[in-house]
């Protein structure tokens, strides 16, 4: 029995009288690709924010590779090997792409406590950042500001920033939101090419891409897990059709 990459046990969260997460339990194996779908208001993002530590659950536990992170601050997640992307682009708009990626790597590097030596473009972290950007086909834009590049490119940098930390668990919050068809294809290929050993949990609305990506799917509705299983099981499940497809 391997230690799961992520284990949620009976997670509960209410905002006032509204129960947004009602007893969600979830187990994700190392290297697994998991899709979480559900209609608007199903509690997907709230669930994500609890895993990421931005919201504390009312009860239940969250553990990552056997380490209980339930009451740990947000930054402890990164050090436990969890990275995330945001639904709304959250880059450092006035800094270069290289700086964005290098700063991300700095977050899990002891060098971040250094207060005297300059953090410059000849730093090893910068060189690594340039490699990562060129592997995404963004090497010619590496010295542009993140605010200057196109939205589709920003989406890719958003993933590059998270992946640069070499996470063991990656949380993707609607990585395709607002993209054109071509851009979707590009981000889809990017996600497909991520290292197999990284477990990925993704929230996505684009069913075509999402279904191609997912091996395991969890359907969330009104804060509960309704259906869970592999692609065929979930897609053909009558409750899925009822809830998600509205038929």
């Amino acid at each position, binding site marked *: 029995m391997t230690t799961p990459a992520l284990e949620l046990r009976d997670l509960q969260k209410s905002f006032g009288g509204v129960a947004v997460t009602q007893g969600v339990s979830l187990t994700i194996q190392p290297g697994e690709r998991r899709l979480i779908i559900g209609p608007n208001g199903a509690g997907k993002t709230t669930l994500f924010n609890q895993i990421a530590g931005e919201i504390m659950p009312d009860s239940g536990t969250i553990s990552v590779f056997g380490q209980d992170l339930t009451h740990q601050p947000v930054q402890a997640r990164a050090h436990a090997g969890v990275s995330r992307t945001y639904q709304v682009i959250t880059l450092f708009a006035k800094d270069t792409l290289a700086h964005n990626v290098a700063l991300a790597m700095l977050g899990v590097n002891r060098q971040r406590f250094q207060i005297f*030596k*300059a*953090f410059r473009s000849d730093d090893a972290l910068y060189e690594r950042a340039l490699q990562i950007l060129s592997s995404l086909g963004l090497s010619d834009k590496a010295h542009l500001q993140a605010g200057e590049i196109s939205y589709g490119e920003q989406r890719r940098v958003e993933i590059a*920033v998270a992946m640069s930390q070499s996470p063991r668990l990656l949380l993707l919050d609607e990585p395709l939101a607002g993209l054109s068809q071509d851009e979707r294809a590009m981000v889809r290929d990017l996600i497909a090419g991520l290292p197999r050993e990284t477990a990925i949990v993704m929230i996505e609305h684009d069913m075509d891409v999402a279904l191609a990506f997912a091996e395991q799917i969890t359907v969330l509705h009104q804060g509960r897990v309704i259906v869970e299983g592999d692609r065929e099981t979930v897609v053909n499940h009558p409750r899925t059709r009822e809830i998600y497809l509205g038929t």
Partner: protein
Amino acid sequence: MKRLPIAALLLLLFSIPLFAGEYFVNLGSQILIAAVFAASLNLLVGYGGLTSLGHATFMGLSAYISAWLAVKMGLGHAATAPAALLLTTLIGVAFGWIALRATGLGFLMLTLALSQIVWGLGYRWVSVTNGDNGLSGLTRPQPFGWSLDVSSHFFWFSLLVSCVCIFLMARFVKSPFGASLRGTKDQARRMAALGFNVHAIRWFSFIVASFFAAVAGLLYVYFHKYIHPSVMSVTVSAEALLCVIAGGAGTIAGPLVGAILVVVLKTYASAYIERWNMMLGLVFLFIVVFMPAGLVPGVAHWTRRLRGDKS
């Protein structure tokens, strides 16, 4: 390279006492003190996005602690200076912890409230501070028997101290830690998700800023040989904020240029116009309208435009 112009500038500054009269040399010393103080505030405002309206507290506390230890305890400069720096920085630890319960407007109000308490103590705790009379009868130190009572000597001393301070602050903001501080200004949420302890980064920067303000406080009390509670007033904090914003927040040169502007205007305008604050207000208005990022980035922007570069 940038080294050559900086070396030329330093040489020029160094030579000022050789040709300028005493009045200008003293004005120069005051500008240097204001520059260190503004640069320390810039760490918070420009790099951390933390607008403080109580930074004069640290300059004042350091000046008061040094003066009090000298006047009431009879200690020499070798003891008062490190004690003032250490105690002020420790108060910075406590005040930072309190003020950083909040960010944005809440942080500004907390720094204002804390500074008003200290300012009030300066006026009311007469047995320690002499209240409105201030502490007088102070001396300037004599490093290696070199009297700082000569105005040119004091200028060179201030120049040395301010260069060291500004160099250290410049290294600080360019370091990995400085990069993380700028990150917390732009995307605090993401910084936490990337593994940075946002609160600790802000707190440490607050402490560093209070330390350099304490250095400015020592220079201030050495220069004036007198200390009055008004040095801790909100006006002094606001003036430093004006230096930072007018010069260019988040740049190394900005607060230095801002300090020149504010001190010169204050000195000259107040000699000719009674309402010199109005003058300062007009200049500030001009800067905000034409160079919203401040003089240093603003001038760079306009020179690029005049050269026909559109970007």
